[in-house]
């Protein structure tokens, strides 16, 4: 038995929103590290973040029973006891700030603004940095929100833990860096990634993957060792069991663990060891693995999110 009320659209939205957030943060980081280089990588990565979040939000709207009512943000997301409300407004604000940032990051647009507008020539870089920081703050919020949405639902034991927002946030950063790596590989002829930045990104990948492995391990351990005498505890353990050794285990171990964590970690370490040599293929392989694994993680966590059989368990306890 799997959770089938929220299926592929919400799962893909959680992935795309997280990946977009991570990509925007990494792109902003690249810009802040060196404001004159990697202009194409930065702008393309920012557009990739915008498209990711935009497509994710569109999927979410299409999944609603009443999509037209759903796009009336001020009416349909006006109840501020719901994390979905905070998420909708946060994602909307992020989309606006990211779009502006991405637009002025386009080299030809930036050049034109500098040429035609004296004030922008003097303050443009500062404006971009400020927008980048604001966008990155919103990105952190959106990344964490993808986990908070599930955590604060309250009816699904597997999701009802602060470890889930932690897991999704780390995974969002991880997949975001992977997306920027893919962009860098694709644009390697037009805008080669500097060795210094390349090494930094590989180190970030190592740190994030190790962190994600740790959080994932603790998350599953907590769930598997939940109190079996309660309905919630039983459901939490059953859900985690689905992932670890149940019907979802093959997908979980192959896609999330091997593809999404082991391969990116191995490739990043190999890349670091290779030093000055061309690590494009190694980087691309690791990044694609991280993206597939990150996407799979959302699908599997959603699918394993089964409810406890509270009424049935209450009956069974009565009849003992």
């Amino acid at each position, binding site marked *: 038995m799997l959770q089938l009320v929220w299926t592929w659209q919400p799962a893909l939205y959680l992935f795309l929103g997280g990946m977009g957030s991570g990509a925007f943060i990494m792109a902003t980081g690249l810009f802040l590290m060196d404001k004159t280089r990697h202009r194409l990588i930065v702008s393309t990565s920012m557009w990739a973040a915008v498209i990711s979040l935009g497509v994710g939000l569109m999927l979410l709207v299409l999944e609603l029973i009443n999509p037209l009512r759903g796009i009336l943000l001020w009416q349909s997301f*006006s109840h501020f006891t719901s994390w979905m409300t905070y998420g909708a407004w946060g994602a909307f604000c992020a989309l606006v700030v990211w779009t502006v940032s991405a637009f002025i990051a386009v080299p030809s647009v930036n050049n034109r603004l500098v040429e035609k507008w004296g004030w922008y020539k003097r303050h443009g870089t500062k404006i971009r940095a400020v927008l980048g920081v604001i966008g990155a703050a919103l990105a952190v919020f959106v990344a964490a929100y993808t986990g908070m949405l599930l955590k604060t639902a309250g009816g699904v034991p597997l999701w009802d833990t602060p470890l889930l927002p932690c897991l999704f946030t780390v995974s969002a950063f991880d997949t975001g860096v992977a997306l920027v790596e893919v962009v860098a590989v694709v644009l390697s002829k037009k805008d080669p990634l500097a060795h210094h930045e390349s090494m930094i990104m590989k180190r970030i990948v190592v740190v994030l993957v190790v962190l994600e492995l740790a959080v994932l391990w603790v998350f599953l351990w907590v769930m598997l060792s939940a109190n079996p005498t309660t309905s919630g505890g039983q459901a939490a353990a059953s859900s985690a069991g689905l992932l670890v050794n149940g019907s979802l285990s093959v997908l979980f171990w192959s896609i999330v663990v091997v593809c999404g964590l082991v391969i990116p970690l191995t490739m990043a370490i190999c890349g670091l060891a290779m030093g000055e040599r061309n690590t494009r293929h190694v980087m691309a392989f690791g990044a694609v693995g991280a993206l597939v694994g990150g996407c799979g993680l959302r699908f599997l966590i959603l699918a394993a999110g089964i409810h406890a059989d509270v009424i049935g368990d209450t009956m069974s306890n009565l009849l003992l």
Partner: protein
Amino acid sequence: MNDETTMARRTLVKGVIAIGSCLIFAGVTQAMPARAEEAASGLVDVQYGFMVNRRKCVGCKNCVAACRKYNKLSDDTPDRRRITERFDSHGKKYRVSTSCMHCDDPNCMRVCPAGAISKVDAGIVQVDKDLCIGCKYCFQACPYEVPRYNSDSMDKCDCCLGAGVKPGDQPYCVSACKFGALSYGPIDDLVAEAESLNHEVVRVGDACEPNCYITGEV
């Protein structure tokens, strides 16, 4: 670029921002008082709830059919009431009929982004189908898997308010039960009455403080 063009553009941008802000503000302020009014009119003085007798319920589903009939549920609307069956150690089958628990602290109401779910008179938890966007977050929030969906919105038990029954009056499922397995009333009174008869009284769960109890002669 001349000054007049620049001025005209600035004015246009300012105008668009001002109109947009006004629209959003108007929308928010329009949505909020409506809910505040609703809350004010829906003061919950006495919490009503359901009591189901596991020794009397035979699983005939008359309650399910009456609920569907009188609430005029469409074909694509799932049942609002469900029968749960369990066996005791002697192999004897017991059943209980449950629907929405009309919780004291409903998760569904908390997580609904549109504020479509409210707690009204008699503590009934009701969904406003004109506000529901159908995000299905309430299903993930409800520990009892109560919210269900049709092609229009979320659907669940509202103690037959939508079928014209006044808050506190007997819903059709209770009237339809020929075996006296279902009771509806002020929940504290129902619990006190069952306890005074020395019956077992067990709440269906703890989460959200549901107002539905399973009872039966000991």
